[in-house]
């Protein structure tokens, strides 16, 4: 059980740290912040807004398809809306929500660090993310949003068939967004390898962190093919190269290979953090260690690795040789094993523990069920002839929504409930939390399950309308009703959290008796996170009561306070032994400025003012130079 760091004995010590670490209040404070918790909150609020936008787009589509020959959206509007829905949910909600919000806020707390390894780079990644989101959403405001699907197949995405700026918003926006993601994940990798608290050898790192480590490596290797594809696309569109032009010796299938070489690892990038959230919540509520910890850690890493060998299963109808498709079908089936290992490790942990079915755990149970459902339909796509029959139908839409909404968003929702007390210091309303779970669960099932059937009845994806005599009407109406129920569930949750943020009872530092280090410090955590850097002797650091009591005694003695500036210890990558003392940089105006100049570069590239874009690029280089002109303040 956690020992509360009682305020009295350590007060003078923490005041010293408070002076060193606390940032300015107000808008300027938030603009220049390098505190990983504040950056996490910025990410959280921004991605929630994008989630709302993507949700409105989804409801618009469902309303259009509620009956045959719907007139809510024009064909052009429908195409823009379904494309933006995909781009938003993947690039501007799930990934920044998991890596940006959850990762930033929680990883340093879980590994006992005072900040991320590169705090200013962390800020830069947020501001670039915000810039790329505004960039892409401007297109929707002016009615020129990307309209060739999030997968943007060529030649449909070429200048000939998409002459407007729509696709340029897509290509440039995603390139811009990719910079942000890459900065974030490099930061995670270094942070997890170097800033773990003394004693936290790699085998004592929480499984949550393993999931994020796996995702970070996956993103480092997945983004280059996407960036290559996007640069080729822009070159084809702007200066008339022929990378994808079959008539001139190019190949439209090249786009598909590059895109899915990114796109399939992306699926695991979306769900792996969710696995991490599940493995953080389950032991806490089951009140016991995760079953088969090493197998689960290995599986998380294996899923991220194997995810790179399966991309062609998105292309079974392309007409590739059967030998090729069989190889990729086999690879796709192998991924079933590490996924099943995790599922049964979670379930066995629940059976062997004494689970308390509170809201966060309920969402994780929902997640397990949807993940099994979506996983089972996923296995079917490795049956090549079945894939060739059902790909690009609503059966696929059903499958991947159970994966993305069921298996990624459900843990995110559960995780929001779980760490809400840590973030705000207040408890959410448990009964309304459970109500929101059941409404969301029913809504999810009603929205996405009938899509399997309607797909088998022959309804293709991405069509803005259907004729009344096709036998799809009733099921489509059911899906639409489901989507309204789902929306209601999410709104109940939002109302619960907003109310609790102001009126909820105080939660104390550790309301759930959690197993990781973030529960050992007050809620909300102070700017410096830990009065003394904890010493860790297992993967369930907060359950090691003796260790935590020891931390308090050290704080009382003023031992290892590290208050001579923004100090945090670095440790050795594998064994987690103390290595050196680091001086962390403090708040800075340069990251948002650099992001702004980069935004201008992309805006002028979009409008075709290349010379102006180059000037802005020069300005960005100047800002980068100024940023590094002086050593960070407080450096030794």
């Amino acid at each position: 059980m956690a020992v509360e760091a009682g305020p009295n004995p350590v007060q003078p010590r923490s005041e010293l740290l408070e002076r060193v670490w606390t940032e300015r209040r107000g808008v300027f404070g938030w603009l220049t912040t390098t505190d990983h918790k504040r950056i996490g909150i910025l990410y959280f609020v921004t991605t929630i807004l994008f989630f709302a936008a993507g949700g409105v787009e989804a409801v618009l589509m469902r309303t259009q398809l509620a009956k045959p020959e719907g007139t809510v959206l024009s064909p052009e509007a429908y195409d823009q809306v379904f494309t933006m829905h995909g781009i938003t949910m993947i690039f501007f909600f799930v990934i920044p929500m998991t890596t940006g919000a959850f990762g930033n806020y929680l990883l340093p707390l879980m590994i006992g660090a005072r900040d991320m390894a590169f705090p200013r780079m962390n800020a830069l990644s947020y501001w670039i993310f915000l810039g790329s989101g505004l960039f892409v959403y401007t297109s929707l405001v002016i009615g020129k949003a990307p309209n060739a699907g999030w997968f943007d197949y060529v030649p449909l995405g070429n200048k000939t068939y998409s002459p407007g700026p729509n696709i340029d918003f897509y290509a440039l926006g995603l390139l811009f967004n990719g910079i942000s993601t890459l900065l974030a994940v490099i930061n995670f990798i270094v942070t997890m390898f170097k800033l773990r608290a003394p004693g936290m050898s790699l085998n004592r790192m929480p499984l949550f962190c393993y999931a994020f480590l796996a995702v970070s490596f996956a993103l480092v290797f997945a983004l280059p093919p996407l960036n290559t594809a996007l640069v080729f696309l822009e070159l084809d569109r702007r200066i008339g190269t022929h990378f994808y032009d079959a008539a001139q010796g190019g190949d439209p299938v090249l786009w598909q290979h590059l895109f899915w070489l990114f796109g399939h690892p992306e699926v695991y990038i979306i769900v792996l953090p969710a696995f991490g959230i599940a493995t953080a919540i389950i032991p806490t509520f089951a009140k016991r260690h995760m079953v088969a910890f090493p197998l689960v850690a290995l599986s998380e890493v294996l899923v991220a690795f194997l995810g790179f060998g399966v991309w062609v299963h998105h292309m079974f109808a392309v007409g590739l040789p059967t030998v090729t498709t069989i190889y990729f079908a086999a690879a796709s089936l192998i991924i079933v094993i590490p996924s099943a290992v995790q599922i049964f490790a979670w379930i066995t942990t629940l059976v062997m523990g004494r689970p308390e079915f509170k809201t966060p755990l309920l969402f994780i149970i929902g997640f397990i069920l949807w993940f099994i459902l979506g996983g089972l339909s996923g296995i079917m796509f490795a049956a090549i002839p079945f894939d060739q029959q059902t790909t690009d139908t609503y059966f696929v839409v059903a499958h991947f929504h159970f994966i993305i909404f069921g298996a990624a968003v459900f843990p995110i929702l559960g995780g929001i409930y779980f760490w809400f007390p840590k973030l705000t210091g207040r408890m959410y309303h448990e009964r309304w939390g459970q109500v929101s779970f059941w409404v969301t669960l029913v809504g999810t099932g009603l929205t996405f399950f009938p899509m399997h059937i309607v797909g088998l009845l022959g309804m293709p994806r991405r069509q803005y309308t259907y004729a009344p005599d096709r036998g799809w009407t009733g099921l489509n109406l059911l899906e639409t009703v489901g989507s309204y129920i789902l929306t209601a569930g999410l709104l109940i949750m939002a109302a619960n959290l907003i109310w609790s943020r102001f009126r909820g009872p105080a939660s104390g530092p550790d309301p759930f008796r959690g197993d990781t280090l973030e529960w050992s410090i007050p809620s909300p955590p102070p700017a410096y996170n830990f009065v003394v850097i904890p010493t860790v002797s297992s993967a369930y650091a907060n359950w090691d009561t003796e260790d935590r009591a020891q931390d308090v005694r050290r704080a009382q003695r003023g031992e290892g306070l590290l208050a001579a500036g923004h100090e945090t210890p670095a440790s050795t990558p594998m064994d987690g032994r103390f290595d050196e003392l680091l001086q962390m940089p403090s708040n800075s105006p340069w990251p948002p400025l650099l992001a702004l100049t980069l935004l201008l570069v992309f805006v002028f590239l979009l409008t075709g003012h290349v010379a102006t874009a180059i000037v802005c690029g020069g300005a960005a280089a100047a800002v980068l130079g100024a940023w590094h002109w002086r050593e960070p303040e407080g450096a030794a």
Partner: protein
Amino acid sequence: MRRRALRAGLLLTALTTLAGCNNSQSVLSPRSEPARDISTLWWWMLLAATIVFVGSLSFIVLAFVLRRRRGAPVIGEREGTLNLVVILFGIAIPLVAVIAVFAVANFVVVASTDARPDRPRDVTVKVVGRQWWWEIDYPGTSAVTANEMHIPVRTHVDVQVRSADVIHSFWVPRLNRKIDLIPGEHNHVGIYADRPGRYEGQCAEYCGLQHANMRLYVIAEPMSRYRAWLRREAAPAAAPTGATAQRGERLFLRNACASCHQIRGTSADGRVGPDLTHLAERSSLAALTISNTPSNLARWVRNPQHIKPGNRMPGLHLGDRDFTDIVTYLRGLR
């Protein structure tokens, strides 16, 4: 195995009939050997998936039932030898299931669904996908039509597909799997129909604004009727009879119509839009967006953008009488 699949199929058919469904584009009412193999594969996979799902669900129910069992919870309880449980359910059982799916689907079923070059094909049909309709050619004859493919029943038909613009996908689920139409690639798929009938198909790869209205019929009929149809389809258009139709033909040839559409036997030789030589023989217009009735044809010719927004056919500025005459002419193209 057959019988169980059949029974499940019947059950679903009953359910969908109750729900007012039609099965003309359904994966689950196959009318050929490959489509039936895929459908059978589906029912077996569904059975296996249901067992796994219900089994996992029962474990979770077990966790719920056992949540208050005797003994105070010991926080941080250690796992003991539970690795074996995870290895059994997470590795051993899935491995067996996955290998079974792989072997059956990708070696047995794929053999019937693949269009292998060594399999003899009695009839070849060429399909060209265009935004947003299907051009259908019969190599070796001069027959060209659009959106309504005729094939002989109980005959292996080789469909050679090609795209004239963006990527499309040819999909008639009751007859076989789908195949993409990719610029620069020559793909093909074998189709076969057990019995006469009209099977629905649709473009399955997103191809732009009117992807939703890019549909086709495959009409399977006995060989003799198919041959007769092919002969009629290969013949040039009959000369219009009656003053109205003749005036309609002149208007058609003089206006923009002729630069996009071909009517064999006249000077109209455009290949941008569908061949109209035997338009009146077809049952639908605009890739099955509307049925081919006199009033629909008139609506379509007057204002194609209203019916299928964004399609490549512009509205013409002609007088009422001109439109009527053109429609009369087109209605005579049998």
